[in-house]
């Protein structure tokens, strides 16, 4: 007992000494990053995400055609032409379209390249909004408890009482179809998840000694909440948020597929797939490639999320 108390004092002194030399104490995040980079699964995720980010950034350079321009009337062009790659034996007389043409004779490859921008935006914006709102509500509920907690969590229960996609469809029906409203709907539907996780962490952390110490020093409750409790409760939120990007992209594509998400001629992958689904048997490439693109983006975030979970799990600390 005495030993451990003395040990703690020694530790604190050591920490204080070290902090004179370091700008910041070695952060949880930095060691987590180190552990993250040792996991193959996370590296694979990062590589996939990196690839898509590059595609999104350099879309105008990568795309071979204008994604929204129909090429009908030009020589050798018919609607829904299958992929034609000269290097793979496609006749040189035909113009090269590596993923073929869609129903409006637009270059499928260029549309998918530009669609990357939309999908990444969907993932990042919905999760950012949902995490910010969810974390704030969850932190308030967990920290203050009482009626605030009750009110927030009961509303969360009701929202979680619906299958997410159905509620999103209903919200889009209220707001009107379109990409922005679809994003808003997905964000609203996912807020309770983040609120719950944040609340659970805050409930644990607010009982710890260092929070009591801050309170004894006279810090206001908002200050304690945001500078002491919330930063320490972020870990599970980061994992959930990364996986959330993956499911947000999937859900937005689903809404697009049902015709309530992004509207044509937007090159959103779900919408593109939905436009051509009836031509599945005659032009499978128009269904295959957009779906493959969705899967590969989502896979990247899922892998990274898994890797993050392992890296941030204190039980796996090495």
């Amino acid at each position, binding site marked *: 007992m005495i030993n451990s108390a003395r040990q703690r004092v020694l530790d604190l002194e050591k920490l204080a000494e070290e902090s004179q030399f370091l700008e910041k104490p070695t952060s949880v995040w930095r060691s987590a990053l180190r552990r993250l980079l040792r996991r193959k699964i996370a590296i694979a995720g990062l590589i996939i995400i990196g690839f898509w980010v590059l595609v999104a950034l350099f879309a105008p350079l990568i795309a071979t055609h204008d994604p929204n321009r129909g090429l009908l009337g030009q020589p050798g062009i018919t609607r829904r032409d299958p992929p034609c790659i000269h290097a793979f034996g496609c006749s040189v007389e035909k113009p090269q379209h590596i993923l073929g043409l869609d129903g409006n004779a637009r270059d499928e490859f260029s549309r998918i390249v530009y669609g990357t921008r939309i999908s990444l935006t969907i993932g990042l914006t919905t999760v950012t909004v949902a995490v910010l709102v969810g974390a704030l509500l969850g932190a308030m509920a967990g920290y203050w408890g009482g009626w605030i907690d009750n009110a927030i969590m009961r509303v969360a229960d009701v929202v979680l009482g619906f*299958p997410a996609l*159905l509620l999103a469809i*209903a919200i889009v029906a209220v707001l009107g179809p379109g990409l922005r409203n679809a994003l808003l709907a997905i964000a609203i539907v996912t807020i309770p998840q983040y609120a719950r996780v944040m609340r659970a962490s805050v409930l644990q952390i607010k009982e710890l000694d260092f929070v009591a110490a801050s309170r004894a020093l006279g810090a206001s409750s908002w200050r304690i909440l945001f500078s002491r409790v919330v930063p320490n409760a972020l870990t599970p939120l980061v994992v959930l948020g990364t996986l959330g990007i*993956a499911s947000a992209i999937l859900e937005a594509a689903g809404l697009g597929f*049902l015709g309530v998400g992004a509207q044509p001629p937007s090159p959103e992958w779900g919408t593109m797939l939905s436009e051509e689904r009836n031509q599945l048997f005659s032009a499978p490439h128009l269904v295959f490639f957009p*779906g493959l693109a969705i899967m590969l983006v989502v*896979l990247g975030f899922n892998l990274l999320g898994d890797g993050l979970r392992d890296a941030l799990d204190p039980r796996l600390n090495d």
Partner: protein
Amino acid sequence: MVSFLVRRLLYTIPVLLGIVLVVFLLVRSIPGDPCTAMLGERATPAACEAFNAANGLNEPIPVQLGIFLGNLVQFDLGESIRFSRPVSQMLIERMPMTIELSFAAFLIALLVGVPLGILAAMRHNTKTDVATMAVANVGVSMPVFWLGLMLAYLFALLLKDTPFSLPPSGRLAAGISPIPFYEVWGRNVDPASAWAPVYEFLSNFYIFNCLISGQWSILLDAVRHLILPALALATIPLSIIARITRSSLLEVLGSDYVRTARSKGASERREVSRHALRNALLPVVTIGGLQMGGLLGGAVLTESVFSLAGVGRALVEAIFSRDYPVIQGFTVVIAAGYVLVNLAVDLSYAYLDPRIRLE
């Protein structure tokens, strides 16, 4: 256990009420009114007036809510504005399809996912483990509708003339419909009796119906139609269940009591089957139950891909035609089903893990 049960049951009541209220308000705030959606853009004000009066839409909102709640308590979900048919009748026709699909998908997810997870855990850090988890990661990343369309392309077109060919749409081949089991049994069901809807509801579970009444060829057809949608719908929960089973089993295998069993000479197989698996399956129950609820959302997409007349598709169509009673009735029933599944999961969890009850 009893007090836990009662507490948990009471707790679902406000959630259900909240859901009803949210649905009601959400439906009223959908832009565009049912009159123009039904009668067309050029409906005269007088025609709209009559239409609203006929459908109870000219009452103040709180009164409409009161009527809706009052009817709901008596299981009366109103009448579809678009089809002029009772909403409950539509549910009786469409609900079994969706339940059958979700249940088949859940079964596939469980029967394949759990063994896959066990396999990966027992061969931890080997190629088998890595490969299984890679497949699981790809599985959770696949859009349901894309997988459905790809399966349809593969089995209905590429494998068309092989024994593996499977139909890409519908519940049964054209022109076939199963005879309700009570008619096969020679029982007359009085259509006016209170039990008639129950009989009808049950007989709309085609597979169940054909199974108990021995209509084998129709049963085969129904199963063949169900395979592709169920596979598509099962993939995500299957992958999630495999991952959870693996990580949970790994955790349990690392615990002291399993090591004790091992040091006493239990074989690896015995160690897993007798000691670890039971405890490792706890989280699988929770996650599995949650996935069951999520299946309902995925069912909307699957039904759309495979042209199945289920609940999800009807709901989406109702939203677009502003058919208030259908949207309300369907959503409330689906959400209630979802809440009840979660309740069942909580209860089974409490049954399996005594620590939960003590809270």
